[in-house]
């Protein structure tokens, strides 16, 4: 978790690139922000399995009891690469695919993450040590 701020900066740049250079102009009216509720708990993530593409506000509630972070990565069809420990996702390698990160949050708190989702498959995960492998990963299909 030492390098979380760096990750955040990279992710923000990535989102900007994705949204700014996607060539898909925002449609007024239909492009209003939607809120998608996500719940994290030991060691599971609850979220809709599909969501419409566009601007989405992910409202992530940590229901504990442990702290959790929240990472949104566009996965395409392949599996996420792991670090050499074999337990955590190698965030450097999915840096370009990462569309948003919420830093580790205490149980009982809720944080919003604003993302622009393009159609495709995304992974919602907590990459704290052991959490990904312990069950905190969910597939999200954007149409």
């Amino acid at each position, binding site marked *: 978790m030492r390098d979380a701020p760096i990750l955040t900066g990279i992710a923000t740049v990535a989102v900007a690139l994705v949204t700014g250079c996607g060539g898909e102009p925002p449609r007024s009216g239909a492009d209003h922000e939607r809120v998608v509720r996500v719940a994290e708990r030991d060691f599971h993530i609850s979220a809709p399995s599909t969501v419409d593409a566009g601007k989405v506000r992910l409202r992530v509630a940590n229901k*504990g*009891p*442990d*702290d959790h972070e929240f990472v949104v990565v566009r996965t395409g069809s392949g599996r996420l690469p792991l670090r050499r420990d074999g337990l955590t996702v190698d965030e450097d390698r999915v840096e370009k695919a990462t569309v948003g990160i919420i830093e580790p949050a*205490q149980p009982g708190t809720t944080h919003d993450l604003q993302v622009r989702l393009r159609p495709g498959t995304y992974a919602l995960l907590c990459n704290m040590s052991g959490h990904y492998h*312990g069950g905190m990963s969910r597939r999200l299909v954007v149409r």
Partner: protein
Amino acid sequence: MPRRRSFKPLDSSQGRFTVAAILCTFALFSALSVGLSVRATEGSHHRATVVQVAARQRTLAERYVQEVLLVRQGQRADPAYTGGVLRDSVVALLHGGTAPAVNGDDDATRLAPFKGARVRAQLEQERRLAADLTATGAAILAGRPARGRLTAHEHVRGGDPMLRLRTLAALTSNVSLNTARSMAAGADKGISDLITMQVALGLAGLLASLGLAWALIAATRRQTAHFRSLVTSSTDLVLVFGEGGVRYVSASVTEMLGRTDHELLGEGLVEQVHGDDRVALETTVAQGTSDGVVFRMCDRFGEWRHLEARVTDLRGDRQVQGVVLNARDISERVRLEEQLTVQAFHDGLTGLANRALFRDRLNQALARSARSPAPLAVLLVDLDGFKQVNDSLGHDAGDHLLLEVGRRFDGVVRPNDTLARLGGDEFALLLDGADGPRATAVADRLLECLLEPIEVADRELTLSASVGVVVHPGGAGDSEVLVRHADVAMYAAKAAGRARWEVFHNEMDREFGEDLGLAQELRVGLQRGEFSLHYQPEVAIDSSALVGVEALLRWQSPSRGNVPPDQFIPVAEDTGLIMPIGEFVLREACEQTAQWRRAGLLPDSFVTWVNLSGKQLSVGGVPTTVHAALEASGLPPEFLGLEVTETAIVEGGAAGERARSELQELHSEGVSLAIDDFGTGFSSLGQLRRFPVDVIKVDRSFIHGVEHDPKDSAIAANLVSLAHALNLVAVAEGIESDGQLTSLRSLGCDLAQGFLFARPAPADVVTQMLADGGPPVPGAPPATAPGRPHTITALPGA
């Protein structure tokens, strides 16, 4: 009704209470702060312990996985022990107790059960994960498939048991780390809360203390202002003496002395204190004695103000550190006291010393003389003829005269001498250190200074004085004796003709001392009623009828017995006592005659004769005295006769003129007049003719020889015929024998008076005579009884 606000001075106990309250407030808030700090420190310590245990959990979880691997590779390890320690540590964190020591590592750590729902939930999760981890490890080591149900809701992917084991270890480790972090965050929050509370407490304590201190300062300021206004508005002068002189002078100094306080600070005050009082003031201040001190200070106008100060020694008082003087201006009181002293010891008219002060100075001088023999002299001065001035020109003129005389005498004496007015016209002078020559030289100067006339009531009067001088040679002496000797010497000067001085010598005491003693006794006797009147009847020679009485003064002295008038009358005339004595005689004679008249005892034409002294006539004022006596008794003037001597009516000058006019005035009112001792004086017949006399009394010296001495007989016959020629009644005095009576009858003398008829007798005896119709028959008491008188001729002109 407005509420009165009384000022309550802040006493020292109130001040102490306020200071104590401030200190207590500080202590309370300090204790609370320290308590909070201790709790914060304890919290920090707990956090360190928990973080340490939590860190150990991570290590234990990782070591457990390594040991499982080692055992599987056939190496020696004890994962079961490590797993047990891991589980026990979690339980200890959760419920309290001892986190067991790890082999070769830390000691066992005592932990308190952790409070806080969130952290407890994390710890519960950690406990479950640890249980899942060790269960999985145990299954792997036992060769059993690691598919047991997991308790912490973890869903480990894949079937690799080692991956499952490592995932669980990672979860355990991660949750443990997060738990430790939550604990630390909670502790941090607690500590920051404590710090906030500490700051709040500190601020509250500071405000409370500031409030109390402000209240104390305000009260002190109010009190200071109050006392300052008391001190500054007080008329008393407050001085504080400290090191280097006066340290404080209250503002009232301006009003009291007209000076500013700056002038008197330091050594300035002492410079303004009277030289004689400086030592007393400095001693008082140095000793801080509580007795008051009185000192004089020079005010702005150069006048001495008398200050009376109360002294309070406050050198021990740290607030003051000095000696405080509360001074009052008592100049007015001192002035009044001095004035009273002057009044007590000075003559109100002349401002000279009075008798008391003179006697005091004389006693002091005698006491000095007794110690170191030195001469001194006393001069007594009596103004000659002062009484006449007083009586004729009035008391104002007399006072003016005395004032001028006092002023002249004062110009003659030296400052060391004591000039006093003893009363009346009597002055005294004490010459300390003077011998005989100097004393008489001063006496000369006193007499000389009177030579120049004194203007009184538009007249120029020339007075002389008689001065008695007594010189005390030195040594012990008696002031009484000295003054008496001076009195004798003065009397001698008067006797020697006045307008002179006489120095006392012992023979003088024998010569005049007697008279002076007599005068004193006369004065006392008059007050004590030792005088009385006897009455000698006057009878008609031819009928022996009682036609009048002559009032004669008798003095029954307790020490001298019966004193004849010829002994004391001259003394009374010299001392002026003749005036009150004369008044007494007139008053008494009129009163007695009025009684007889009221009793119906008096025949027609009865006259009571009263002798007037020449002195009385020369002083004047006889009609006033006569009128007073007549009015007091209610006696008609026809019953009163006045006997005067020849010399009295022939006296020249203003006094003689006045005396004659006064007698004429009385005669015109009905008072009879007689010339006493006729034939012995030098009266001219012309004057006798002009003077309204009714009776002449032929002197007894002629009567004595009328029977045998042809010369006396001839004179008596001529006097009687002269009287008849002037249409006056002739009275023969001192008839003692029948022969004398017979001769006088043959000469045609009208009335007679003498032992042959009756001796002077008290009033009651005369009363009896009057009641009996006349004196006893002449000649009855003596052995040789003469022939009886027969008829009485009518009194002419009565």
